């Protein structure tokens, strides 16, 4: 489903990734671990085609980094959920609106949007916070809003880039449990992290990366 073949990424002449090959299967849960600056975020950005390799090929679903057209990118992104360390929520919009945005841009009818957003917020235990603004929520709640936004389009994979980086250990575990639950329903999860304690709680395949290379 996701395949990297000898991927090289250079920025300003410096290698960020070197000869990276990897494969993530349908419905799999994979940790991507390594120190800061190892190239974890770069791998995630390659998957949602925010970045293209200088050499090698990235294949996601039926799209290849070598052949994908600019106008196809929005459509593949609808099938990929992305979650960040800093949540990336819009501070001038409510929880409801933040989640609904992901459906609005795909042209879903507003009655349908309402139904689906309410369902996902309930699943995330956020329905009573729907009219709050992000800054009124705790870090864990904000990250759950971000996860809700990432999964509302029913993606085949959720990419989580240090999702627990800003959270305390207990909240981190809750977030991991949430991702675990999403994975149980068949969605693949690729979680980049350097929190080695946390990933011992739920064992999954781990890809280690250091200085741009798989180790």
């Amino acid at each position: 489903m996701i395949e990297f073949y000898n991927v090289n990424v250079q920025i300003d002449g410096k290698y960020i990734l070197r000869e990276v090959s990897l494969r993530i299967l349908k419905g799999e849960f994979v940790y991507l671990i390594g120190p800061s600056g190892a190239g974890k975020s770069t791998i995630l950005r390659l998957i949602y085609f925010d970045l293209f390799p200088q050499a090698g090929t990235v294949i996601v679903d039926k799209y290849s980094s070598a052949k994908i057209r600019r106008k196809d990118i929005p459509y593949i992104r609808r099938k990929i959920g992305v979650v960040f360390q800093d949540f990336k929520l819009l501070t001038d919009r409510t929880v409801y609106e933040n989640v609904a945005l992901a459906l609005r841009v795909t042209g879903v009818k507003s009655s349908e949007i309402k139904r689906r957003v309410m369902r996902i917020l309930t699943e995330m235990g956020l329905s009573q916070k729907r009219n709050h603004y992000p800054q009124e929520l705790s870090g864990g709640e904000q990250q759950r809003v971000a996860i809700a936004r990432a999964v509302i389009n029913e993606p085949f994979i959720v990419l989580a880039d240090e999702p627990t980086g800003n959270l305390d250990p207990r909240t981190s575990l809750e977030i991991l449990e949430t991702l675990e639950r999403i994975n149980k329903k068949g969605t693949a999860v690729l979680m980049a992290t350097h929190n080695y304690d946390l990933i011992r709680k739920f064992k999954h395949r781990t890809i280690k990366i250091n200085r741009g290379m798989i180790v």
Partner: protein
Amino acid sequence: MKRARLATVIAVTSVSLALLLIGLFGIFYLNMDRWIGRLRAKMEIEVFLDPTVKQEKIDQLRKSIQQIEGIESVQFISKEKAAKRFKQEFGQDIFDIIENNPLPPSFVIHLKKGYRTYMRVSAISGQLQKLDAVDEIVFQKQLLQIVDRYIQIVYLGTILIGLMITFIAFVLIYNTIRLTIYARKDIISIMRLVGATERFVRRPFVVEGMAQGLIGAAIASILLFYFIKFVKTFIYPYLATTPYLFLILLGLGWLLGMISSRLSVGKHLQNV
């Protein structure tokens, strides 16, 4: 966001100012054109004849004059009629001043529309001069010259000023959209992240530009409407206007907003 909002207010204000000025120039043009048209219509060429000319010759002359291109009407003014006209114009009988009528017979010629310019009138006058028994040709040479020479300058100047102001409004909308794009860069990147097409991302900015243009045009139309009302009530009731002017302003505002925001979006959205 505040900066973008202020910029919006400035852009809308400048659009309305630009379009108001264009509207005012439009009214000015309409009235100027009507006034000059009337001036030209009143314009006549007087062809004074040799006082001793015979009736036969007069008939022959009339025919020759009528054959000249651009002549609308030819009227013969006999010595007697000339005296009457003199009395009408000056309120005094010519015979009170001198004993015998010194006024020569003449033809009064009106020209067709399009022949009432200085160049054409001069050409026709030259042709008339060549006819037999023609003594002198009189027309409002200077007035025509002034009108013809300066009206071009006035119109050209008007168009140039209008274009300049429109350009300024264009730059302001362009810049407002640029500011709005940067103010909303967060939402733009999130929209792209969750799979919005570029068209979808772009649309609100273009709509906003068009709205700015249209709102500016609406304000300009309202101001212009009251300006017209004011002038008609207190200054000049015969002011020429046309409802098309408002339609033109709205169309221009819409176009201005659309073009400038499209260009701005095309230039700046990719940098966000």
